[in-house]
């Protein structure tokens, strides 16, 4: 389905500065043809600027962008086989839905405009709205039309700029599945910009986490989640418990880290730093909560002497906050399968988890946590 003239999208050493502010900092990136690629990051991390450079709406200060063999770094937006689904859809208010979708086809002098427009409207399941004006549509419908208007041109690369940001949660979930279906159906390269980690993980084959104009880590969603390589990724993608410790020993398989008097094991492959001071991480759902008296199997990492300081029942799971002897709160998600014990606030508990679920990182424990998201949009 993908055209043979197509190819991978390459960004090489791309930098974009606005005055003294560097929005995108020496970015090199390859997006394979036909993939669903997500650029994930907080506001102001440079993801939208990157997208706009691919669209041709901004010119890189330094670097080059090529699509297959073709250098499109300085090509005008209307001369690129690239289309965008804009953040607030940017549907033309004076044209009806049909003419909105036909806009790109007409500009290129396509022959069977009618057939293609109706096909695109069928793809988003809204052919009956062809003669309405955008103002008469709901947010979700406008979103689909914006998608149809871009997809109908069969671009080599389709750019999506926070396309679901204005929708409510339920509709967003539904559109995530739709988008993925459409991408599979038409086989275009999708580059999706979002600050919603769940959205990125649900849809994308490859996620690039951006921060301060650089890519922190790139890979399959499960890879990023299970083995974050920076504390920013560990905190931005899901939640992480990060505990400071000192590396005291290492053998071929595992590194031993001393955390607040407790020796913990990290597989060598999951230890992202050579430093002596490390941050030891574990995801909240990987931790097992046991009563104080309960025996912990040998070989597990553990923290004893925790006190439940908060327990929030969330239906599927219960989220515990466990205060450890040195005053730090760790988060634990316990599935409500009806077989484990519930621990009321004040219970004394022991936390335990597989060493294979542990990771070790260098750096700032608070990078990428919620308060970090309040950076103004650049």
């Amino acid at each position: 389905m993908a055209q043979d003239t197509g190819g991978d999208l390459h960004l090489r050493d791309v930098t974009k500065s606005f005055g003294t502010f560097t929005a995108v900092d020496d970015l090199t990136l390859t997006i394979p043809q036909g993939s669903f690629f997500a650029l994930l990051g907080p506001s102001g991390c440079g993801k939208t600027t990157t997208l706009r450079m691919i669209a041709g709406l901004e010119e890189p200060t330094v670097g080059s962008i090529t699509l297959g063999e073709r250098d499109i770094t300085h090509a005008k937006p209307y001369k690129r086989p690239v289309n965008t689904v804009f953040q607030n859809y940017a549907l033309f208010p004076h044209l009806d839905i049909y003419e909105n979708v036909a806009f790109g086809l007409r500009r290129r002098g396509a022959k069977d405009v009618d057939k293609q427009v109706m096909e695109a409207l069928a793809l988003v399941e809204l052919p009956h709205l062809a003669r309405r004006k955008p103002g008469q549509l709901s947010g979700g419908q406008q979103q689909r039309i914006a998608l149809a208007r871009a997809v109908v041109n069969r671009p080599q690369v389709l750019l999506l700029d926070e396309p679901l940001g204005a929708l409510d949660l339920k509709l967003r979930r539904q559109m995530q599945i739709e988008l993925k279906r459409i991408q599979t159906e038409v086989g275009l390269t999708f580059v999706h910009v979002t600050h919603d980690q769940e959205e990125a993980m649900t849809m994308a084959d490859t996620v690039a986490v951006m921060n301060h104009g650089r890519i922190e880590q790139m890979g399959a969603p499960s890879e990023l989640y299970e083995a974050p390589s920076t504390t920013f990724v560990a905190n931005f993608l899901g939640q992480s418990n990060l505990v400071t410790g000192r590396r005291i020993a290492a053998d071929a398989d595992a590194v031993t880290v001393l955390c607040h008097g407790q020796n913990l094991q990290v597989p060598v492959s999951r230890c992202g730093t050579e430093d002596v001071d490390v941050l030891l991480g574990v995801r909240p759902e990987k931790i097992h909560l046991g009563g104080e008296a309960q025996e912990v199997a040998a070989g597990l990492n553990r923290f004893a002497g925790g006190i439940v300081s908060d327990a929030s029942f969330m239906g599927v799971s219960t989220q515990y906050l466990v205060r450890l002897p040195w005053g730090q709160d760790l988060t634990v998600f316990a599935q409500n399968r009806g077989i484990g014990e519930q621990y009321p606030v004040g219970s004394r508990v022991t936390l335990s988890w597989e060493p294979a679920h542990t990771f070790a990182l260098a750096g700032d424990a608070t990078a990428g946590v919620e308060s970090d998201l309040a950076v103004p949009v650049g």
Partner: protein
Amino acid sequence: MAIASVTHTGPAAPPPVPAGRSRSLTPYLLLLPGIAWLTIFFVVPIVTLFGTSLQVPAEGGETGVFVQAFRFANYVDAVTEYWAQFSRSFVYAGIATVLALAIGYPLAYMIAFKAGRLRNLLLVLVVAPFFASFILRTIAWRQILADEGFVVSSLKWLHVIPQTATVTASAVAVVAGITYNFLPFMTLPLYASLERIDPRLLEAGSDLYGNGFTVFRKVTFPLSLPGVVAGTLLTFIPAAGDYVNAALLGRQPGTAMIGNVVESRFFRIVDYPTAASLSFVLMAAILLLVFLYIRKAGTEELV
């Protein structure tokens, strides 16, 4: 839940009447000052003017004394006698409107999209002429367009206009004056509607394979139509009734517009019925033209 769904399947209950709200007098009380104003200063004078337009001179009376005769033929007489001035008014106003659009549109476009930090300064400059008296500014154009003045002699020297051409007291001068005087009324509504256009729509147009001109033709211009309609109306309507430009920049009777006729009938010849019927015909003609124009431009598009 079950109960709720049962009640929903039943026949829909009539919507409750908003008690007391529709009967409240508040909206009418709030309208009162406006209605009073319009009644005293618009309806009453219009009716009086209409009455005057049907009067005839009192037999044996002095100049300026008229009696009511319901003589509708006053209208026929006025139009047959002054149809040249009527058509001249509409032609001049039409040309001035087109010129003001041609000058005002690029100006408004520049201010809205390209001016950056200069935007507010430029807007002030558009309005700045209002700070000087209308009459003074119009008289100034007499100097500017004088045959022996810099502009005309330069144009002659450049052979843009023939050596024998005269601009002083010509139709050109009148149209130039009208265009100049009403330019802000064209530019400001244009600016207002251009400024409101979401720049992302222009980006979307360019993303969808439209080059600069196509995006202007297919996106920017259609979206600025409310401003074009407002601007042309605000220019055309007062321009058609204008008499100052023709009086100060033209020559009588060669470039007289209907406003000049009304003025002279009222104040010099003291022929109130003719002046009143001319005023009414002008009003009716403008209303008709505006109605046709708005029908054509499509009010639905103007939201």
